[in-house]
């Protein structure tokens, strides 16, 4: 239980690092730390499959992609325009805090445990990868195929968009 609070704190700190670190590469590394601690939280919630996916896809693949793009662009710091305080920015803080206050208000007024229907545990392992695989190829077969198509389209789209157009070529 104390571990949950430790990793929750770590993930919030990593998220704050994204918000406040000037260098985008430092921000990306702190986001990786945040994703790892979220994976630890998932393990503590007995969702091992989600934890593995989180580490492999988020902390691994997606963040490596971000770091590659940062490396390609060789960015400088954002300079003096890092966080310029203006009326719009103050409004942004007010909006973000308003969203958080609304969420906290709803959570404070209703006990979330009482909202979910209590399903009696059948005693078997809930988050087993075998069950997930069975669901994926029976009940969720159509979304599964659709998402493979989406990945194909994303790959082709990324290649087409990021392709460098040389000045001599006609396109």
């Amino acid at each position, binding site marked *: 239980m104390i571990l949950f609070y430790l990793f929750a704190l770590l993930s919030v700190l990593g*998220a704050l690092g994204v918000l406040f670190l000037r260098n985008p590469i430092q921000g990306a590394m702190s986001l990786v730390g945040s994703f790892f601690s*979220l994976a630890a939280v998932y393990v503590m*919630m007995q969702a091992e*499959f989600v934890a593995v996916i989180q580490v492999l896809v988020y902390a691994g693949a*997606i963040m490596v*992609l971000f770091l590659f793009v940062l490396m390609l662009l060789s960015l400088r710091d954002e300079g003096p325009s890092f966080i310029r305080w203006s009326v719009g920015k103050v409004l942004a803080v007010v909006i973000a805090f308003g969203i958080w206050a609304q969420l906290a208000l709803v959570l404070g007024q209703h006990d979330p*445990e009482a909202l979910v229907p209590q399903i009696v545990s059948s005693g078997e392992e809930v988050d087993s990868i075998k069950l997930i695989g069975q669901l994926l190829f029976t009940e969720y077969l159509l979304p599964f195929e659709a998402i493979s198509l989406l*990945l194909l389209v994303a790959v082709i789209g*990324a290649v087409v*968009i990021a392709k460098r157009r040389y000045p001599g070529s006609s396109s």
Partner: protein
Amino acid sequence: MMQIPLGHILVLSSLLFSIGVLGVLLRRNAIVIFMSIELMLNAVNLSFVGFAQSMNSLNGVMFIFFIIVVAAAEAVVGLSIILSLYRSRRTLNIDEFNLLRW
């Protein structure tokens, strides 16, 4: 093993989501804004896992599977757009991009 109360998970999720919103609204670097969006997606994933745990159901886990795949596709396409934007303008400051502004 003791179950983590759902309320605590939702509070953590709302905190992460609000930090992501702040990042999108405050920062001016396109890639940092993108990372904040990933953070918000993660916050939603966390609340999905929380509800799946307390409802003792696998459907939430399936949703997370699809959310993560869509997030990966979105990251690929978005980063390539950022790359071609940088090639044409030599900057990532989103205040400089007003092509579609009314």
